[in-house]
Every structure is written in C-alpha cells, then in structure tokens.
C-alpha cells in the first residue's frame, strides 16, 4: 500500500445542471476519488438529494455529463448500478415483505451478492429477518437498506441522510459501519447529511452545497487548520490572511474568523493569543452567510 498512490476517479461530474421551477442545481464540476469517504453537507433544500438522485440516474440532468467508474448511464446503466449500493433518505421498500424476501429478490440482480454477508449484517445490526417492513422503525429500515446495499460488495456506496432522525446509538452503529467499508481502499463512500457531527467523525473530504452550488470542497483535516476562530491583538489583524470577519473581544483584542487562505502555521502563529477550529456547521453557516451576502 504505497502512501503516494494516485487515487482513481470514481465519479466525474462536468457542468452538471438540473433546472426545476423554483430551483436550479449547478452548474457543478467536481470529482470523487476512490478510497475515500465524502461527506456532502448543506442546509435542507440545497440540492444534496437531487445530486445523489442524479448520480443514481433516478433524476435526469438538464445538461452536463456524469461518469461513474468511467461509464455513462446512457450506455451502461446496469453495469454501473451493479457496483453501487444506495440507501435513500426515505426507506422505499414494499410494506408487506420481510428482509428475507428482499434478500432473495435483490440477490437476483447482483452477481456479487453474498447471502452470508447479508445475514451477518442483519444479525449484527439487530434486524429481524422475518418481520414485515411496515412494522420496522425508521432506524431499522435504514439498517436493512444498508445491509442490502453492502451484501453485494459495491465499489461505491451512496447514502442520502443515513442518520437523520435516528437515535445516537444507531447513528454510531451506522457510522462505524461506513468507516469499516473503506478499510478496503478500492471502495468509496458518499453520504449527504445535515448532521455535521457525523461528517466530522468519518468523512475524509467535505463538500458544502449551498443553494444548488458547491460553496466549498476540501479535506476535513485541512478545513480544521484553515477555518478557525482566533483571538488576536487588534493591531495584528492586518497581518493575517484569509480573514472573513472580526468582532471586538475586549481588552484590545479582536475575535477573528478565518477561512480559506489562512495558513495556520509558523508566521501566523505568533499573533494568535487563543484559538480553536470551527466546527463544520459553523463553517457552513459562514458559507451560507457569504452566499446570501453575495446575492444582496
């Protein structure tokens, strides 16, 4: 496992646009690399679900190009979908069937389906195989969907708000499972969420989507070193780069929010009296502010 391996591009999105009556997603240009966990964060209505549906070819783009595994949906829909596991936001499942039925049904479509893995996952996640779907709680349905998605060993796992509305214990179970998935570096995970703490825990890269566009994309750790809240002397503020906004902090000091362009090391460090990294939801708030300011 060479540390300097160039990761392959799993998803390539070029000039993607989807126009609705009151909302437009895009134009978007971004790539997703193999072997990483991507957290897609944004407020409700920002376009996260639309983006994921387009990646699954459930919704068709108005314009632009999407390639997954180097293939396009126009020519290779089945080939692409055979390698993707998808967990939607609303667990769309037939009401009266049970996990066993679903396993048998779905297994016909995936050559890599491993019934033993399916059973093991259901057991580990405490999902009753013989209970009809409509009697399962939302959390259990999500776990069932996850088991179905993972049992065929997908190269790409896409989840839409997998932890939304779930209790903390179930959330941890699911997040732990996601980090297990990428222990195999050939697999990639994409999940959208508005629960930023979950992305903090497991994501390698964060994509912020605000108002149908990508506000920011970066490595989670890099964001920690760039986006910070600093206490500096009022006279030293001009020495800093990447300043977003400031406010008085008393005793001649200023509270500074810094972001892109801030280099947290060496030359800046001596001005900093106190500091802390911004949480992802704070970064999102700053980005959303910037967006609405830009509109005004």
């Amino acid at each position, binding site marked *: *496992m060479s540390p300097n391996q160039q990761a392959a591009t799993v998803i390539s999105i070029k000039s993607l646009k989807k126009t609705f009556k009151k909302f437009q997603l895009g134009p978007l240009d971004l790539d997703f690399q193999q072997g990483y966990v991507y957290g897609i964060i944004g407020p409700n209505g920002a376009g996260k679900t639309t983006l994921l549906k387009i990646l699954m070819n459930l919704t068709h783009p108005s314009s632009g190009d999407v390639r997954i595994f180097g293939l396009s949906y126009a020519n290779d829909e089945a080939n692409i979908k055979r390698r993707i596991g998808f967990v939607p936001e609303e667990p769309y499942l037939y009401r009266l069937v049970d996990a066993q039925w679903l396993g048998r049904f779905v297994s016909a479509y995936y050559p890599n389906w491993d019934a033993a893995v399916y059973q093991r996952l259901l057991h580990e996640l405490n999902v009753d195989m013989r209970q009809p779907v409509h009697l399962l709680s939302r959390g259990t349905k999500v776990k069932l969907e996850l088991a179905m998605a993972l049992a065929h060993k997908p190269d790409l796992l896409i989840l839409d708000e997998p932890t939304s509305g779930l209790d903390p214990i179930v959330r941890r179970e699911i997040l732990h499972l996601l980090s297990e998935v990428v222990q195999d570096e050939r697999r990639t995970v994409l999940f959208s969420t508005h629960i930023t703490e979950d992305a903090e825990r497991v994501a390698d890269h964060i994509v912020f989507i605000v108002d149908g566009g990508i506000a920011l994309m970066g490595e989670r750790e890099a964001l920690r070193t760039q986006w910070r809240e600093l206490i500096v002397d009022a006279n030293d503020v001009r020495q800093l780069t990447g300043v977003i906004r400031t406010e008085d902090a008393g005793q001649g000091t200023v509270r500074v929010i810094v972001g892109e362009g801030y280099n947290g090391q060496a030359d800046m460090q*001596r001005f900093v009296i106190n500091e802390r*990294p911004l949480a992802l939801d704070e970064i999102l708030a700053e980005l959303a502010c910037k967006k609405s300011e830009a509109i005004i």
Partner: protein
Amino acid sequence: MLPVSLSSTSSAPYYQQIVDQVRNLVLSGRLPPGMPLPSIRTLAQQLTVSVITTRRAYEELEREGIIGTRPGAGSFVATLSANELSATRLTHLRSLLNEVLVEAKAVGVTPQQLKSLLQEMLEQ
C-alpha cells in the same frame, strides 16, 4: 493499536499530534524498533480521523526517519542506531527550543535572561 490520543481542542492539527506522540513513543522506547505499525486505514478508524491524516502523519514520520515502510508489508518502527537516536532527539529538542527563542524575542526577553532562566531550571 497505538497508544495515541488526539485532542480536538489542541491548536496542533491531528497529523501533527500523531507525529509528535509517535516520535515520543519511539524515542522513549515504548514502541520498540522493528515493531509493525497499524495500516493507515486501521489507525484512521481507531482514532476516528481521516485516512488522509494518518497517511500524512506516516509520511512525515518516515521523512524524519522514525518509521520505515516496506512495500506490501506496511509500516514499522525504524531501527535507529544510538547516534541516530540521539541525533533525532536533539533535532526534536532543537525545534522545541526554537519555539521558545521565538516566543522570548516576541515578548522581549533578552538572551541573558533566557540563559539564567535555563540555568535556574537545570539546577532544580
């Protein structure tokens, strides 16, 4: 398992914390030479950080000569000769002392004051 513990409130980035802690563990002998290290992905999961972070930490540690990597066999603690060990320890102390010197200059402490402070502390 590596006895590393990360702080989310520290101003040092995670990869730096890993590098510093592993360096100390190796220099103090807690991680013996030749000991195999967890893969970057396993470590990332253990510490709940990004694999990019652990990869960066291992790259940095390898650059410093503290760990080595065999392609296909993973990373392990480097076997450092006595000279290399002391050289590494001194390099590390040098960078720490450099921070003290920078800080001293910034707050206006003279080299003389610094020397007497060090003297005083060494005698304790």
